[in-house]
């Protein structure tokens, strides 16, 4: 692998950048692999990378029906954090956050991970109780998190309307200072390049159309380029999980919904961290290019069209202007939608399926991007061993039968 550095950049500039190597090969599929990963998004590519790097399994193919990182990796709002409520999820996301912290160096690819902090605003007394519960749980789990009062919030977030006469006055906020943003495309490309360098075959523009089974167990996949054999198959296809699982003959507790986001025109930096509000219902950060990156809640119906409904955009913009009235004259440039596979408890499903040799990693819902390294890391271990990684174990499919859900929807709205 051609090593990237500032010096390398200078050296290449002397030859007019004519000698940069390909970041990854364009290989012809082999007849059989040790592991096939379906889905060349961030999670799938990370899985391949850690299989090769940490488990020495390099006879691996990633099969992608479109282009690498072209699904939700390309369509999210790039937020990375680990301040989840329950032990199981906060530990999984914290595992991921720790990997983020060294990822650029590990991959020799600058994923521009910026730990500029993530604030969750509290607007009601119950919000404050929930924040205390979350911060307390995080702290005892060894994950730094802070709770701020209204004045501290006003000091730390310029232009946020902290006055008392707003519709939902801000009473405080929790802040995870190690949280932040990363450059989404770079994550996919960085993992792709590093996995390719370790021998992984990245096979683009190839769609898995079915599974071939022997004695009930998967022995490979049918694709638009013919059959490819595999000892184990991992399915990491986010919003497309349900239709693909149907081809393998099982159902999942998943629904795929549109999740929309939007950006403003690039403006001089004014938002210096990630700010989220559940009550007002919107969140915002600002990219290094200057775009305000704004996210919304998911659309309520199943949709694979990579677009959602306009009222969601309207409501989100209203929330942003409500929080930051000075942004009223800033203009929205572009909107888009991803397809998020949501579970009933807003937590992923990682592990075995009813079909032997076929493993899944799905159900990340709205939170997949931040989990990319951790998800890939534990799923690689799961595929390598044939048994779930300890951090992945609680996220098994059986929990929807036993009832051992890990409800991360956040505490319900207060009654009385």
């Amino acid at each position: 692998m051609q090593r990237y550095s500032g010096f390398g950049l200078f050296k290449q500039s002397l030859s007019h950048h004519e000698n940069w190597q390909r970041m990854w090969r364009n290989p012809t599929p082999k007849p059989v692999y040790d592991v096939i990963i379906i889905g060349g998004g961030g999670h799938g590519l990370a899985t391949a990378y850690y299989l090769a790097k940490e488990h020495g399994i390099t006879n691996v193919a990633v099969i992608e029906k479109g282009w690498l990182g072209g699904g939700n990796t390309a369509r999210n709002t790039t937020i990375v954090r680990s301040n989840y409520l329950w032990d199981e999820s906060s530990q999984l996301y914290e595992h991921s956050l720790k990997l983020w912290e060294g990822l650029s160096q590990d991959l020799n690819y600058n994923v521009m991970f910026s730990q500029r902090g993530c604030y969750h605003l509290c607007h009601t007394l119950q919000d404050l109780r929930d924040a205390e519960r979350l911060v307390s749980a995080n702290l005892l789990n060894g994950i730094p998190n802070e709770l701020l009062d209204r004045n501290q919030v006003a000091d730390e977030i310029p232009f946020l309307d902290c006055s008392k006469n707003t519709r939902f006055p801000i009473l405080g906020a929790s802040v995870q200072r190690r949280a932040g943003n990363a450059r989404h495309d770079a994550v996919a490309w960085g993992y792709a390049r590093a996995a390719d360098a370790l021998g992984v075959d990245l096979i683009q523009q190839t769609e898995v159309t079915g599974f071939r089974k022997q004695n009930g167990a998967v022995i490979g996949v049918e694709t638009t380029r013919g059959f490819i054999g595999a000892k184990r198959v991992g399915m990491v296809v986010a919003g497309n999980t349900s239709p693909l699982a149907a081809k393998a003959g099982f159902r999942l507790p998943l629904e795929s919904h549109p999740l929309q986001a939007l950006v403003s025109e690039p403006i001089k930096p004014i938002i210096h961290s990630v700010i989220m509000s559940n009550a007002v219902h919107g969140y915002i950060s600002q990219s290094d290019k200057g775009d305000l990156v704004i996210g919304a809640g998911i659309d309520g119906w199943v949709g694979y069209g990579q677009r959602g409904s306009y009222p969601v955009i309207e409501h989100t913009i209203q929330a942003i202007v409500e929080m930051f009235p000075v942004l009223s004259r800033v203009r929205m440039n572009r909107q888009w939608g991803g397809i998020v596979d949501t579970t009933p408890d807003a937590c992923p499903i990682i592990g075995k399926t009813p079909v032997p040799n076929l493993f899944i990693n799905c159900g990340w819902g709205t939170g997949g991007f931040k989990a990319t390294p951790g998800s890939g890391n534990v799923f690689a271990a799961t595929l390598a061993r044939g048994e779930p990684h300890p951090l992945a174990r609680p996220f098994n499919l059986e929990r929807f039968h036993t009832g051992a859900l890990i409800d991360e929807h956040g505490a319900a709205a207060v009654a009385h």
Partner: protein
Amino acid sequence: MLNIFCPHCGELRSEEEFSPAGQAHIARPLNPEACSDEEWGEYLFFRDSPRGLRHELWLHASGCRKYFNATRHTVSYEILETYKIGEQPAFTEAAGKKSAAQGVSA
């Protein structure tokens, strides 16, 4: 923004008036006690999420407050039909029918 024909009000209304309520035709088991945990879990949580036609339950929340069903394409977002609770869809994935006009339903 979808335009949805309410079978009770008898006209097309904007999506804002409605709430989606998940997959249609999920009947509560008649004898829950006879269900295993696995079967009960399937009833509670396991849903079809096809790329293609899906039968959905909707509520005309701001209008007549009635639930009804819709057959909607999850990729194109076309609504092929809406029908009252207790009725069966005319369009199914198996039948492979295709509608002519979008948003207009019988």
